[in-house]
């Protein structure tokens, strides 16, 4: 058998453009470099459905998208350009608005949807706590469940779960997975700092992780 060289980027671009043009995709994806690391951006025709950090395994993310949204998952830099540019500009501090359409298709439960939609009332520059957010959405006893729902936010940054902090101080967890244990809180601090909302004195706890 002849040894197979990888397909050329030009061929892959043409294929992706044709697939998108013909409406054959359930989701498109590409990565973008930002000050908080490489982000994987996945979107449907309705909006961004998944943003993943470098500490999350890309193949698992895409397999999940394929299983729960649709298997026609295609890499396309063109089709994701607007969302990727907006994220990069926001995270580099060029823009203070992050106006990206969101598709909550990967949200598993109505409760989680309610929690994530409740974040709309937490604007850039302000923060809230898990308990306050639980009260705000009318589920004052569900503080812990609120934290869990935020940990499973499929579209971090755009749906700003980083603005929710534990009452006891520090920034709390971020990313909701084992891989995020160390990297997650660092990203969360960077996002809060960018937005001018890092709690005073938090830097002193930097080494503690949470």
């Amino acid at each position, binding site marked *: *058998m*002849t040894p*197979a*060289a*990888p*397909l050329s980027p030009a*061929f*892959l671009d*043409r*294929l992706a453009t*044709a*697939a998108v043009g*013909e409406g*054959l*995709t*359930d989701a498109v*994806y590409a990565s973008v470099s930002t000050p908080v690391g490489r982000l994987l951006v996945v979107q449907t025709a309705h909006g961004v459905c998944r943003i993943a950090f470098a500490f999350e395994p890309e*193949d698992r993310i*895409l*397999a999940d*998208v*394929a*299983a729960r949204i*649709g*298997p*026609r*998952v*295609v*890499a396309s830099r063109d089709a994701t350009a607007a969302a990727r540019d907006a994220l990069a500009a926001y995270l580099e501090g060029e823009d203070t608005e992050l106006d990206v359409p969101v598709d909550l298709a990967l949200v598993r439960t109505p409760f989680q949807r309610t929690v994530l939609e409740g974040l709309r009332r937490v604007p850039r520059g302000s923060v809230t706590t898990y308990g306050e957010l639980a009260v705000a959405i009318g589920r004052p006893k569900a503080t812990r469940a609120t934290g869990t729902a935020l940990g499973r936010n499929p579209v971090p940054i755009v749906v700003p779960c980083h603005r929710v902090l534990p009452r006891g101080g520090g920034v709390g967890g971020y990313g909701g997975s084992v891989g995020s244990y160390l990297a997650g809180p660092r990203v969360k601090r960077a996002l809060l700092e960018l937005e001018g909302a890092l709690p005073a004195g938090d830097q002193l706890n930097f080494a503690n992780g949470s």
Partner: protein
Amino acid sequence: MHVVAQPLPPFWSLVEAHGPELLGHARRLAGPTEAEDVLQEAFLRALRAYPRLRHGEHLRAWLYRITTNVAFDHAARNGRRRELPLDAASEPVAPPDRAPAAEDDAFAALIGTLPEGTREALALRFVDDLPYDQIARRLGCSPAAARQRVSTAVRTLRGTLAP
């Protein structure tokens, strides 16, 4: 206990995993200038059918099959099929203006008339020169079935060319 069907992987993982060898296959069937067009059309055809697949098994064989079919369709679209006999009584294929390098293309056009399922077996046997166990693996069938398909193809061709 029942077996859970293997889910369909993200389509692009198939492009990345099998694209390079499929391009080689397309090149052997359709020639170097047409290969990328053939492969693109094959992937688009696969993408159109992908959501209707019931499980994620034998996807590599499935993609080989589609690429083979697209290569034959390309050959036909390029007009070579017109040179084929329309019925068994016509003259056998002998395009007078055939360039020596076009032998593969003529072969492709010829076996493009074979029943679905046998022509890819034939191509793998005589174009890719694979042994039956490898053909079986590509097509997702047993070596005996692969041999059967090739022999059906050969028999059909004999019937077409020398009635």
